[in-house]
């Protein structure tokens, strides 16, 4: 198990290096006009000195080597355009906790609401609660999020008696963004959990559990729910870590200074070092999420063994 995780981590480093190299090469294909706000008015000399300041005059392999060398030292680089001459770690440092808190809370809410909801829907399949839940899921999935996000903001702020502008120190301000952000996941978890649970409940082993004399509630919790949760657990770490990345729409709607939209922003502005740093962060998050998901599966499903060739399916 430990060897497997180590191997996976080493391989992930390679993956990250490849991702970064590709992003690096792509960024260098961007027109140089993008690096200057007033390109047309600059003389050739000014442009050249500007490029050399950014290190863009060097051959690509040299630049690439420099980037990896800096990374190795733990230096993410300095922003040139997004915020001139500010170390990127300093820019990201205050943003990450906000997105993390927002996303973490949203995930907590979606799990604590979505999972009981899915369970109840499966338990009362075909009855009122199931229909109600299905209607909710369909609504959330079919109506563009922008529509109900706006409604929530408009009427929610009025209801809670708060301003629309975000203040991280006021807990009330967190309610609406967190709730808006969890709606989609509530529907998602409820829908899939219901589906997996309904699948499981038709299996023979559930029949056998009934024959044993287990009560319906006990069967639900110790057989059906547990088995249905296995395919879902794989995605939990990823969806948690993805919250670091933030939500563009919610964050801009409530003016939350998080990570949402940051990547798009810095690509547009051709802030190479920023793009590389943000891509590195997102890719790391994604890869760690996958590894954690796989490890979680091993703990829940005895049929899956990692790394070793024996057993398993």
């Amino acid at each position, binding site marked *: 198990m430990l060897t497997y995780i180590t191997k996976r981590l080493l391989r992930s480093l390679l993956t990250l290096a490849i991702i970064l190299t590709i992003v690096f090469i792509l960024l260098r294909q961007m027109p140089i006009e993008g690096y200057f706000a007033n390109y047309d008015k600059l003389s050739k000399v000014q442009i050249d000195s500007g490029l050399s300041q950014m290190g863009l005059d060097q051959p690509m392999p040299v630049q690439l080597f420099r980037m990896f060398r800096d990374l190795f030292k733990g230096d993410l680089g300095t922003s040139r355009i997004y915020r001139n001459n500010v170390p990127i770690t300093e820019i990201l440092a205050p943003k990450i906790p906000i997105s993390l808190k927002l996303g973490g809370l949203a995930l907590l809410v979606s799990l604590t609401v979505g999972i009981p909801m899915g369970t109840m829907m499966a338990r009362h399949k075909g009855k009122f609660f199931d229909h109600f839940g299905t209607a909710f899921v369909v609504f959330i999935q079919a109506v563009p999020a922008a529509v109900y996000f706006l409604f929530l903001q408009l009427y929610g702020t009025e209801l809670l008696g708060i301003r629309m502008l975000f203040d991280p120190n006021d807990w009330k301000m967190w309610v609406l963004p967190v709730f808006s952000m969890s709606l989609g996941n509530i529907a998602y978890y409820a829908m899939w959990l219901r589906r997996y649970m309904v699948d499981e409940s038709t*299996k*023979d*082993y559930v*029949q*056998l*559990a*009934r*024959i*044993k*004399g*287990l*009560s*319906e509630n006990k069967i639900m919790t110790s*057989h059906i729910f*547990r*088995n249905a949760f*296995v395919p879902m657990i794989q995605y939990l770490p990823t969806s948690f870590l993805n919250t670091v990345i933030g939500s563009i729409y919610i964050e801009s709607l409530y003016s939350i200074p998080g990570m949402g939209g940051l990547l798009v922003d810095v690509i547009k502005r051709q802030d190479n070092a920023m793009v590389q740093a943000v891509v590195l962060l997102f890719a790391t998050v994604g890869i760690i999420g996958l590894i954690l998901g796989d490890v979680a599966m091993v703990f*829940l*499903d*005895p*049929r899956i063994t990692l790394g070793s060739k024996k*057993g398993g*399916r």
Partner: protein
Amino acid sequence: MQNKILSVKDLNVKFNLRGRTLHAIRNLSVDVYRGETLAIVGESGSGKTVLNKNFIGLLDPNGFIDGGEILYYGNGDPVDLAKYKGEKDWLGFRGNEISMILQDPMTSLNPLKSIGAQIGESVRIHQNLSGEKLKQAVYDLLEEVGIEEPERRARQYPHEFSGGMRQRVVIAIAIACRPKILICDEPTTALDVTIQAQILNLLKDLKVKFNLTVIFITHDLGVVANVADRVAVMYAGDIVEIGTAEEVFYDPRHPYTWALLGSLPQLGIKGESLYAIKGTPPNLFMPVVGDAFAPRNPRALKIDFMEEPPYFEISPTHKAKSWLLDPRAPKVEPPEYIKNIRKVGGEVDGR
């Protein structure tokens, strides 16, 4: 032998399917005696499994009992299982009084729970043990069903067991409940032949050891000959002939039983194609008029199409529902191959 443990009287079971009603069990009556092995045979869809699911309260949600009684005498005074509604009534009964072994051992165990935990569940509910005693009980059960190294095996998961071994585990689970009646719903169909014999022998041993009454559902007549004391032949939701295994095999009276026995490959003549019953069973969405088997019966009488035959008693233990047994009926000889059964009996009968 005359000590009834289960007595079904005029049972009717129907299913609602897309607005139509399917009459799956039609006025069926049967008695099960304490300590016997009753085999229920019949082709797919004849209602064998549906009948037995009533005994344990596991009828599918769209099925319902529409009249009739299922009297259970396990604890002296009879209780009518047909009146049991919902989980509350069944909880103390399932497993405790009647347990069941399912057909496919590959799917009847939870893939994510260890073997020990799954047997343990049963032990905890029905024998009220916990901790070390529970563990010991699980090991004993595993040994009981012929699984070696129980301490190690109990920690393993179903995917580490072969099909035959899994069926042994399922049997251990059923036995752990200490039931009075054990329903075996085609317990060997999904297994290969060598394993079949082992499982059948195991069931026979356990039956004696735990003083079980066994209801054996199967369409494998070879298995029937091996295990059954009495045989009930089901067709289209009713029992058309019932008697001791000897009587049904060597002196069958109902044309359907003849046809069923005729389908045994062992009775075929080398070089000729195997016998198969022509036609299909009646559509149970429609009311059945007369003898349900008449349309497929080349020896059918006129009355078979008009009136349902009653049971005619051939011996105190043997009765069949066929107009051929009426004193007024013309003499119809059973087909030639029925007389050959005794000759090939050794092959069919494993005893």
